[in-house]
């Protein structure tokens, strides 16, 4: 009896102990994704490739917001997006009260480009820490990363302008100071510095990049080719900084091609592009099938049609809606009548169409402007006419025109050549001091926005 009891007792204790013999729990690692830590410790070539492809993906993400929001600020387009009245109310500043922290729908040209900057910084860090790739590959990776980083920094600066932006953002807990407060040129110079470093890296990268880029970079996918992209971006930055000699110098190293006419319009389009595709790839943010019953569509501003020169082939970028003209209760003229949206952007064949992010046509117009302010008016007018004749509007009559008149002409050509390519109109008018009602049609009763207020995380961090 006593013995049997002992057996039971021992048996039951054993069961309990067995049940918990696995007191040790197995360490769980992320079963779903690789970790950043392993990528930056000593990346293999495959891991570097993986990060560079990721960089190209981050690089394209800003574009939709730049076209839609900056485009609305400069009245290139109207945002007929019914689901939220703030697209119209805030973007067109109907209340005249300007922007505010965390301005509606503005992350795409602030936080998003900084994600690309973050990715570029990780690529640079991973390349520097890697012993598994060659020194030339290290330089190639850094050259690609710094070029894209420089380009991406331009977007938050365009959005923030006089607020300045942070350039050094490697350490999330110790970000560098804002650069260019009330002096955007200072920030532009800092960006130029990043681009210049990228150029040096590319020049040290040998004859091939080693890494695969998407077809958006075809023709530019060697260190020398990528350096042309780097210089094209540098030319834009120099122009914005009013560094005309620098712009011309940069154009020299870029892929600018002045040998264009109406028979070779494709040359105008040449340039590196953001690529898109069917899901799971990203879709072209501007493509929408033509004339469908949608409640959300970006519409060409009627003034762009009305102000055009006769026979301008660039008007083919849009097409008049037939059955699905659109209105929005927030968008009315001075009489309170609804403004009808009539012209849709039809530049894109489908949702996988590439979007060039810097093109020869822009380089020609940068050339014109840089020559104008280098007091080479003739060369400036020659460049203007290359553009005008390509699109069938004939030569510009420069007789008796002042420098400012010719600048107006260049800005006019830019308005049509670069329409809806990320808000050039708004950026151009602001940098030339012409962002006013004389240059922007405000029939929508809205107001002009100079720049977007600083995001609250930035203010909070500085206040911390």
């Amino acid at each position, binding site marked *: 009896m006593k013995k049997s009891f002992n057996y*039971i007792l021992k*048996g039951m204790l054993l069961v309990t102990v067995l049940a918990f013999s696995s007191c040790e*729990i197995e360490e769980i690692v992320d079963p779903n994704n690789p970790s950043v830590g392993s990528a930056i410790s000593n990346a293999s070539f495959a891991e570097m490739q993986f990060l560079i492809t990721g960089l190209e993906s981050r690089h394209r993400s800003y574009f939709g917001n730049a076209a839609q929001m900056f485009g609305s600020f400069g009245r290139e387009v109207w945002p007929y997006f019914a689901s939220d009245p703030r697209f119209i109310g805030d973007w067109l500043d109907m209340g005249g009260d300007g922007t505010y922290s965390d301005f509606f729908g503005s992350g795409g040209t602030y*936080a998003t480009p900084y994600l690309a900057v*973050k990715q570029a910084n990780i690529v640079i860090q991973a390349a520097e820490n890697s012993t598994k790739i060659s020194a030339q590959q290290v330089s190639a990776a850094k050259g690609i990363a710094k070029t894209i980083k420089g380009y991406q920094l331009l977007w938050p600066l365009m959005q923030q302008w006089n607020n300045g932006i942070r350039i050094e953002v490697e350490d999330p807990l110790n970000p560098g100071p804002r650069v260019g407060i009330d002096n955007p040129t200072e920030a532009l110079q800092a960006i130029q510095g990043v681009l210049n470093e990228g150029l040096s890296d590319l020049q040290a990268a040998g004859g091939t990049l080693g890494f695969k880029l998407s077809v958006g970079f075809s023709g530019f996918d060697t260190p020398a080719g990528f350096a042309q992209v780097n210089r094209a971006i540098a030319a834009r930055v120099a122009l914005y900084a009013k560094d005309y000699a620098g712009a011309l110098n940069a154009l020299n190293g870029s892929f600018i091609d002045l040998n264009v006419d109406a028979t070779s319009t494709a040359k105008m389009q040449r340039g590196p592009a953001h690529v898109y595709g069917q899901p*799971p790839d990203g879709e072209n943010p501007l493509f929408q099938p033509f004339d469908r019953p949608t409640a959300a569509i970006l519409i060409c501003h009627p003034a762009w049609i009305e102000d055009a020169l006769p026979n301008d082939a660039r008007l083919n970028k849009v097409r008049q809606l037939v059955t699905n003209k659109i209105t929005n209760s927030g968008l009315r003229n001075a009489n309170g009548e609804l403004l009808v949206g009539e012209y849709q952007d039809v530049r894109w064949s489908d949702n996988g169409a590439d979007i060039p992010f810097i093109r020869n046509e822009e380089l020609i117009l940068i050339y014109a402007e840089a020559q104008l302010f280098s007091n080479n008016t003739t060369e400036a007018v020659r460049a203007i006419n290359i553009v005008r004749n390509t699109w069938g509007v004939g030569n510009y009559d420069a007789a008796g025109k002042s420098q400012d008149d010719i600048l107006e002409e260049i800005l006019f050509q830019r308005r049509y050549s670069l329409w809806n390519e990320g808000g050039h109109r708004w950026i151009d008018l602001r940098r030339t001091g012409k962002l006013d009602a004389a240059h922007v049609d405000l029939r929508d009763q809205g107001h002009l926005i100079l720049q977007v207020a600083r995001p609250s995380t930035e203010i909070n961090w500085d206040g911390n």
Partner: protein
Amino acid sequence: MKMHNLKWTFALAMSMFMSNALLAQFTVSGKVTDPLDLPLIGVSILVKGTSTGTVSDVDGSFSLEAPGESATLVFSYTGFKTFELDVTGSSGPQNVQMQEDIARLEEVVVTGLASGVKRSNSGNSVASVDAEMLSEQTNPQTLDNALYGKIAGVQMTANGGAPGGGINVQLRGISTLGAGSSQPLYIIDGVYADNSASRNFRSVVNSAGGGSSSNNQDDVASRISDLNPDEIERIEVLKGPSAAAIYGTRANAGVIIITTKRGQAGESKVSFSQDIGYAKGQNFIGFDDWNEQKVRNYFSGARLNTELAALRAAEAEGRITDWEDFFYGETPLLSNTSVSLSGGNQKTQFYASGGFQTEDGIIKNTGYDRYSFRVNLDHKIGNFITVKLNNNFIRTETQRGFTGNQNNTGGSIGYNIAYAPSYANFFPDENGIYPDNPYFGGNPIDIRDNGVNDYNVNRIITAGAVDIDLWSTANTFLKAKINGGVDLVSGESLVYFNEQMQYQKTRANPGDVVWGNSRNLNYNLQGFLVLNSTFGKFNSNTTVGAVRLDQDVNFLATRGQGLAAGQRNLAWANVVTVASQQEQRISDMGVVAQEDLNWDDKIIASVGIRFDKSTLNRDQQKYYAFPKASLAVNLHNFVETGFFDQLKLRGAYGETGGLPQFGFTFEPLNSTIIGGSIGGVVGTQGVDANLVPETAQEIEFGLDMTLLNGRVTLDATVYNKSVKDLILPLRPASSTGISTIQTNAADLENRGVEIGLGFVPVRTANFEWSNRLLWWRNRSEITRLIVPQFNTGGFGFALGTYAIAEGYSPTAIVGNPDNPSGPVRKTLYGDRQPDFQMSYATSIKFLKHFDFSALLHYQKGGAAINLSAYLWDDGGTTPGWDEDPDGDGTFKGQERINEAFGSGNTGVWIEPTDYLKLRELGLYYTVPSTVLNNTGLLKRLKLGVSANNILLSTNYSSYDPEVSNFGAQPLAGSVEVTPYPSSRRFFFHIKADF
């Protein structure tokens, strides 16, 4: 080895029986009745100190053989005071009248993972809801829904009124700011139940994004709603850490312990119940009928002529429609059928049930069906081993349709009709073609008729428990208690918009479908040793043991776009993508020790500690300690006054934890595809290497009083629950590309009072009136915040959001304009948390056979962000939109929009949520047994009518002041965007026992 032991067990058991049979014995018989002299069926009668016993039969009669010369019989029956009776061989037939335990002082409540005490000895405030309050007054929509107003200290908000529920439950205020589990831990018969809300990607298909937590705009039900309320015997709620400390690292948001029904020894009982009823939409806004003047007031320019023509056409065709009534005006049938069989003998008891609930919604093509089967078994092996087995299979099928938020897609009925004038034509033509909606992105009739948003769940919950008496003497026993269980939830979701729908036609790849499959498996095991010793007037109960929980989750959602006509199979999609794949594996391990001391029921003390580790922690192998202690002093047992049945002072302290969410300790690269290559992008989440779990500490004091023979009860509790090391996203400057680093950044404090008052003013054989009044309030405040103050939840400042700022409530609602001295430098408009809540339940038994009950619930204060009102104003549908009382030429509706956006006054959309609700009403008639006896078949027949949500009185200008677009999360609740309206529900009931 095991076989060997088992043999010995049997041998031992047999020898015990043999020796018993040789002793002297005598027979006792009699009858058990209630205070009204009605027979009590199924009363357990045990010879004290033995396992010999019986149960009373259908007439209340019993007869048993007692050993020896004299014995003490113990009569026990749920809801009645335990009664002891000394008998000898010469005692004649015994008539025992048992007294109701009105104050439920003898109910055993949980104090440890392997121990419990009588309610009268508990050092904690205990809240429990029994079957009668839960599901027998009326038919609740879902289990969680059935708790509201019945427990002090609870705040609930629903996702909307859609069939199948979806409720956010907060016990004693906010216990996490989003990192830990915001919902209580649910334990069903010892099984850690899954209460996750798996995604279905509805919010991707209809773009219900924006807002600061787009993940949670899927409008899915939390899985606790799968349980069939009819099968539940009792729910016990451990509201704060002082009681919930025994559940350690997962108990910060409280614990809800659910016990299902079990068989009782005695005659087999077959019960059948049928509820049948209907629902009606509640509290409609009453959209305007549009006339020519209104059209002119809202439209202008070229559009005006189009609209006037449309108005005239609609008038000519008699097509003017009240869209609210059209869509929400269905009167759906609700039915709930349940059959159960229970019974058994002294050794084996069983309870088996099957239930079928089917409900359609007040919107066509929405509904909810639940099938539930359960078998619960209790068996005694010999005299030493008790085995309990529970098995439950559940299938639920939910069609929730499309309401709430959307973006551009038109994928929400409510959003569409906010912009729909009464003359709009959404009706399909003779070919079944739905016209495009010129006022918004989708045709709401098309969405209703052809949009699919289904969620089906197959679920198995199975539990087993073994109690083994290892050793016992007259004063001491040692037991082993082992139990464990599995909860397997398999969910299948389908969200589908066909290629003909208006928004789809505008897409490059029209037609959109997401198929989701989730499989959540929880399995847990615990083993305890319990040593109980009595020394004179002292009793000591010591428990030690270990617990383990594993969770394994697999989720896959696959999306197809560009669908062939009418097809939703992924094989017919032009583009197929993985919308999400998630794998989660989690292990928790804990060891527990607890000591309960009882001095003669006068002073009862309890101390315990639990050490837990979890793979969710940054340091996966580190144990965190969760202590607890409580003390109860029963003053009435010191001095016999005869006045107090009970007068108890109690105090308790406890600590619990809140684990970081899965993934918070990882810094992943995310996959991306561009130009045919796969790349890795750095995520926006950084990791804090020093992250520790959140811990809550609670101290509570209370007074429990019962007087006048249970006619008056009062319990009052004050508590202070502070949560330390709250995990919050540190938000670096967004220029760094890191948007969040989860870090221990804040402390918050919840202080509250809970008062319960019960009184039975009249109690006669023919009339009994009992009342229960609950009053509770909770105040929350963030007492420390080391990250910059920030806003969260909602849709940004312009539309109202929540501020996280030191010195403010975490549910403070803020908005424009700027206010330098306000939280996050914005204007403070209110607090989601109400000033107080109060509920009143009354029940009247009259004319012997009638029962009447009612439950009223009052909330004072609180605020919500009513974005439905904003959309109605924007669309011109608000009643009286074009009135102009101030004569300034701007219509009322437009004025509100202007004020919100022109003058930047967000307060326009933030409304107080005071309300008075008549939640439940029931009237039942129990057919007298004299009538039933003639049938010879029925033992009991009860008929009744009931209703819930009958009346709502509120100034809140939408359907229901307690609703949320963002589902079950601690902070972002109480933001509504054209939700599924709540409904009133009316039932007829038949309950019969055979």
